């Protein structure tokens, strides 16, 4: 795929997610705390979950850009890694809107087991998305194939930098659909 096109598409998705978050932030706080059913995540918990998971990629990308990005020149073609591609595609909903692949949340990404969720999770989500966008701009000067980043799949699995952008942003997109369902069921 074309690297610049990928960077543009991912930045656009992030901008849309930021815009939507800012609108959701204005909803009554009670609505953001409501659960669709007992034991299910409410809206702020979904945001906190995204922060915990995407934070791994943001930190990984941030440090790899500092360390190694200068060593590579821009490559206009990005070829996804097979694992990165597999997991990114697994995040995509089917055409009918169903989620194709229900997954169990890893403990470390489960908000109630961590510091807990609040409307500040939404503010942090916006900050983190801005940082992703800033890194995407820097990606126009490096090789997203050769720069590699740790993943949430374990210490042995490293994603190509391109996939380390694609996967968390697709994962967030999936959770935005969940947020719309949570809000629709409670508001």
């Amino acid at each position, binding site marked *: 795929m074309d690297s610049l096109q990928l960077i543009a598409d991912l930045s656009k998705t992030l901008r849309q997610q930021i815009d939507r978050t800012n609108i959701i932030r204005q909803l009554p706080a*009670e609505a953001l705390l409501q659960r669709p059913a007992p034991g299910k995540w409410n809206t702020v918990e979904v945001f906190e979950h995204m922060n915990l998971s995407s934070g791994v990629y943001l930190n990984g990308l941030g440090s790899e850009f500092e360390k190694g990005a200068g060593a590579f020149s821009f490559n206009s073609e990005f070829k996804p890694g097979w694992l990165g591609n597999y997991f990114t595609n697994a995040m995509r909903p089917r055409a009918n809107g169903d989620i194709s692949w229900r997954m169990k949340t890893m403990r470390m990404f489960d908000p109630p087991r961590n*510091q807990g969720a*609040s409307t500040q999770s939404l503010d942090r989500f916006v900050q983190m998305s801005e940082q992703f966008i800033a890194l995407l701009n820097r990606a126009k000067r490096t090789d997203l194939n050769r720069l590699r980043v740790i993943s949430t799949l374990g210490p042995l699995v490293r994603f190509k930098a391109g996939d380390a952008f694609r996967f968390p942003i697709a994962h967030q997109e999936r959770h935005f659909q969940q947020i719309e369902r949570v809000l629709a069921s409670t508001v």
Partner: protein
Amino acid sequence: MELVRRAIERYVPLSDTDWSHVAQCWQEYAFVRGAHVSRIGEVEQHFYIVKSGVQRLSFPHDGEDICLGFSYDGSWSGAYDSFVSRKPSRIDVLAITDSVLFGIRYDDLQRSFNELPAMARFGRLILEELLVGRTTREIEQLSLSAGQRYQRLVDRSPQLLQLVPQKDIASYLRMKPETFSRLRAKRS
């Protein structure tokens, strides 16, 4: 948002113009049960008033959480000493139920103190109230028996007995959980 205005007007009357300046600075914050409103080591950024839910003010000591107090519907919340000193908080404020708080940021509150005499007066009255409250509690802690401290709580904030875990209330009253249960059983 009317709640914020009513809370401030318990201390000072606000004109509609004053209120229109102040109102835009307050924002709603939601905390899931178990989330930190304020955290030890971080500078408190907000002064809060509670719309719903219960929060616990505490600090860890010898493997236990020592409970300093609670905030709930209509009361102020946050790590106030850190808020005014701009130094890292020495206490945690934890939502012990799902909570909705209105908060105003430090700079916004200071600006309202500087620009609106009514708000400056409000700020002074809040401080006075907190000081009297602290001193009263200190005297009670040092002079009252366990039974008397329990009775004070029942008289002043009976709703806490329903809202807060017993071990937190016992810690707040500086007594062992067993003493608390005994006093509670004796009364009912």
